[in-house]
């Protein structure tokens, strides 16, 4: 996989949520939300699924493989593209970081 220039992301990058941030399923909103000091990001289904797989162990390639196994009916290439795009974006927004 190609490196995403501005975030330095590649297949072996291990992302985690920023310290003090929390991912949580909200029953009342029927979606995942990302909670941080005095704020909240409301996530759509795919963003919620991707962030749920970030456990501090899986690298980007493992996140892609996990989601491909979880959604066998979806085109594998599309999942890979979604994950890469979302993680770069989340990195730029400061929601997640890597070492």
């Amino acid at each position, binding site marked *: 996989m190609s490196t995403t220039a501005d975030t330095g992301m590649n297949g072996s990058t291990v992302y985690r949520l*920023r310290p003090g941030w929390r991912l949580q399923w*909200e029953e*009342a*909103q029927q979606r995942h939300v990302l*909670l941080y*000091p*005095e*704020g909240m*990001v*409301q996530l759509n289904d795919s963003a919620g699924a991707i962030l749920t797989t970030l456990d501090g162990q899986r690298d980007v390639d493992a996140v892609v493989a996990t989601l491909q196994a979880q959604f066998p009916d979806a085109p594998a290439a599309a999942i890979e593209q979604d994950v890469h795009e979302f993680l770069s974006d989340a990195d730029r927004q400061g929601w997640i970081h890597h070492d």
Partner: protein
Amino acid sequence: MSSCPMPTDKGGSTMTDHTDTAAANQPLHGHTGAPLWLLAELTYRCPLQCSYCSNPLDFADVKEELTTDEWIDVLTQARAMGAVQMGFSGGEPLVRQDLEMLVAEARRLGFYTNLITSALGLDEARILALREAGLDHIQISLQASDPDVAAAVAGSRKAHAKKLAMARAVKAAGYPMVLNVVLHRHNIDQLDNIIALCDDLGADAVELANCQLYGWAHLNRAGLLPSEAQLEAAEATTRRWRETLAERGRDMRLLFVVPDYYSDRPKACMGGWGAIFMTVAPDGAVLPCHSARMLPMSFPTVRERPLREIWYDSEPFNRYRGDSWMQEPCRSCDERRRDVGGCRCQAYLLTGDPAATDPVCDLSPDHHLIEAARREAAGDARTLNELTLRNVHASRIFCRA
């Protein structure tokens, strides 16, 4: 109080991206969305006397604070309604000895818990106890970089050094450190030093919040509102610091909240009246924001009615929802859904009519009141020592009135 967590820029503190939340929570087909945000003002008691405090002028009239059990019931009800972000505020919330218990209960219910504090009453043992209770975030307020200015603003000589020590301890305990500095005409020229101090303390984010003119701040407006020249210089300083921090690879976010007196359009206060935000005052009064208590209307308390009924069905919470209550020029304005007519408290404070267009708007027939305040701010204004400090003694005068 030190500051308040807000979905918009009222009260001295702000959330960064709640436009989306507000939009996502807009009423559909006349349905009111859930109160995503709960601000629990545990007490009006406070060891400081900040002259820009957003507490009501007559706070000394409020005697019967909710008990621990009553607060736990409030938290349980609010969480069941869908509230997920919550702030413990005041007054100074650390005055309540049951704070740790309330934090633990809030966390157990699934809230993201923010403590909004002056840091007075904090020590390392309490930081640890709060950590164990599951507190997610501590926001400490600073009054200035200069100890003398800080002492004059807060009415305390010892507070500043204590705040600096506690800010370092909070960081060492592994919390994200967000500092809140309320800006006004007596400290805004020191912004360069203030940001340098926050950098030195290791802050992850700094809210540079121009004080919003409600409560005690409105009383002290002539001595607080900066001039336009001061504001422009402060914005330039903030921009310069952002560039310097980026060059150094230092991740410290600077959030600059402008005073709305220098805008031509009002803020969409609280994302709309009764839209996403709910304050519960120390005695259980339920408010659409922490300033609304001074409006000429009475708000139900959690001692009288269930929270759900108050939020969805009570007359005060429905009075300024939607746009049917609006007068001209808002009523026929294309922008009325974007800014919801501005702030009801500001409209009342400046015009005497809470349903008026917020005079910040340059389409408002009362906009000259804002222009007059700007002219006043451009000239000589009250010195630091002439500000009325927020304390029980001064408050009793307003209680009698």
